[in-house]
């Protein structure tokens, strides 16, 4: 295979994996604190529509990303009030957030369905971008690609090397012990949940502002759910989240390349489009096959409501 094709596949894989990394790492932080927010799909949709609208009106994609982040954070705040302050069921509330976000984004986005944003240029890192094959794919990329790497590095440091990160994990493993030594469990969970929402919003805005760049109802098309599955698949470890996200990016891109190629294959395009969803199911089966893999790695209090008895 020619190196130019290989290089462009690699490039597209990284672009497709980026929103998954950002969203899944945000979810990972929330889940480490013990909060399971199944609303990622809705938060991404709201991030996408807010990012698109603000970019269109302001002409500045960075204001768009900021708006997407705020929209995602606002959605996760609603969720946090329901599950943390009002102790609602996390599974049901997350579903509700997804339904609400997808519906609200379709409602808000209706007037924007015929607009297209100008393409945002890549940022080229001198010297490194000249490397053969991987140069363009890794170092001549959208700014949010670099952001996703920084986010990964920052989170690894935060979770495993910093004191606040240790506290966050303690809250997720045993909220009652964390409470008894004086940590504000609910406040920490609020912050972690809102961080997760903000990242989901950024991931959503990446889709509508940089990736497509347009807004269509339902454009998130399950990426929020795939991100949640990724966290399970990664057994709550940041590095595996990144690897998994690129794996999925590869699956999404592979089907586009096959569809766009002039190979004479009689596979219906819809079947190829179903590959990322089928791949999600398959990796979930692989990772869950051994009961202990998930049980030993999941934060112990994940999904459990906690109320400090004063």
């Amino acid at each position, binding site marked *: 295979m020619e190196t130019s094709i290989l290089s462009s596949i690699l490039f597209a894989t990284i672009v497709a994996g980026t929103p998954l990394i950002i969203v899944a790492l945000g979810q990972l932080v929330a889940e480490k604190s013990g909060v399971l927010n*199944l609303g990622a799909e*809705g938060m991404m949709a709201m991030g996408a529509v807010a990012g698109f609208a603000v970019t269109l009106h302001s002409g500045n994609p960075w204001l768009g990303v900021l708006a997407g982040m705020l929209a995602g954070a606002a959605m996760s705040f*609603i969720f946090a*009030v*329901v599950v943390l302050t*009002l*102790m*609602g*069921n996390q*599974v*049901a*509330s997350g*579903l*509700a*957030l997804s*339904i*609400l*976000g*997808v*519906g*609200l984004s*379709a*409602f808000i986005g*209706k007037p924007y369905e015929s607009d297209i944003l100008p393409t945002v240029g890549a940022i080229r890192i001198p010297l490194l971008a000249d490397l053969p094959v991987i140069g363009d794919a890794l170092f001549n990329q959208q700014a949010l690609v670099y952001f996703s790497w920084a986010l990964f590095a920052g989170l690894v440091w935060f979770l495993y090397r910093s004191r606040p990160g240790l506290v966050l994990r303690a809250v997720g493993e045993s909220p009652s012990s964390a409470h008894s030594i004086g940590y504000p469990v609910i406040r920490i969970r609020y912050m972690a949940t809102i961080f997760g929402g903000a990242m989901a919003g950024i991931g959503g805005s990446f889709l509508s502002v940089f990736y497509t760049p347009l807004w269509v*109802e339902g454009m998130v*098309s*399950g990426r929020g*759910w*795939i991100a*949640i*599955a990724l966290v*399970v698949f990664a057994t709550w470890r940041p590095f595996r989240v990144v690897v998994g996200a690129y794996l999925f990016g590869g699956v999404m891109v592979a089907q586009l390349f096959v569809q766009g190629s002039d190979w004479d294959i009689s596979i*219906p395009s*819809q*079947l190829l*489009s*179903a590959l990322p*969803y*089928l791949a*999600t*199911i398959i990796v*979930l*089966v692989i990772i*869950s*096959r051994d*009961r202990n893999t*998930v049980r030993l790695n999941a934060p112990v209090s994940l999904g459990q409501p906690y109320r400090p008895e004063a």
Partner: protein
Amino acid sequence: MLRLERRPEASQLMSYASPLIAIVLMLIGGLLLFTALGKDPIEGFKVFFLYPISDSYGVSELFLKATPLMLCAIGLAVGFRANVWNIGAEGQLIVGGVAASAVALFFYESEGAHVLILMVVAGAIGGMLWAMIPAFLKTRFNTNEILVSLMLVYVAQLLVSWLVHGPMMDPDGFNFPQSRLFEDSALLPILVEGTRLNLAFSFAVGALLVGYIFMYRSFAGFQMQVAGYAPNAARYAGFSAKRMIWIGLLSGGGMAGLAGMSEVAGPMGQITEHVSNNYGFAAIIVAFVARLNPVGIFFASLLMALLYLGGEQAQQYLALPSSISNVFQGMLLMFLLGSDVFINYRVRWKEAVA
């Protein structure tokens, strides 16, 4: 300051009142939404909630829309009671619709009652087959049924898209992605002359009755209730968790498949890419608002159907996108989950302790 204080025991009154509180909050939210959009809130309220049911035809449409919601919700409720989270009813509905359509097209131009009977059976089996996948993976490999059933929604949507662009496409249809119009023998009989309300509504009422008997009068239903409230107690009692997963998912899938059949053999009369109008997801909200109770499901489905019809009216008369329905639905569920706190807690005024 205000503090939440745990009630000595759960309030029976609040568990019935909280759906009503949620409905009131949703209505207030709706009035604010209309105001924010620069519409007269009273006018908006009338268009959304009163116009759709201002005549008998409107009421029949309400029951027609509520039919798939009742079917899906009762099937889901059986599983939800045992904490079996099937959230893929949307996909199971689509596959049920596909299976029923396959029968209708296979028996094209053939008369007799066998066509409809086979369509009912095929629809239910189609939905069950789709629900079997998460059930099998959950029981065999412990795979999370929420994520699997949801992923299969997207696969089902792509499946029906492929079929109506390919094998099921109307040969004389100028390449429109839709099937032939079904013959009369493949259409559900109309219940009330002059309306579109059809036999499927009786299926839905029947399903609610059967669901009621299963939940409150059968041992398996009792076991599932115990498993939902106290998983450990159920385990010590030796109730089979696997069997509950199978029952929960198959009932949800079968009923959703039947709902798909009732759509293609009812108001649609053919299969297109838009078999479902988010009924599978709306039914989740119905099940929760109804407290997983069959009588509640009947009324919650009517409410949810009204939100659908209101959205269509809002599109026509207020020039608002019909997705406003989903906004109302999402708000309703969010408010419900929030106000449920008052079942176990009450608000007390407490002096801040320095």
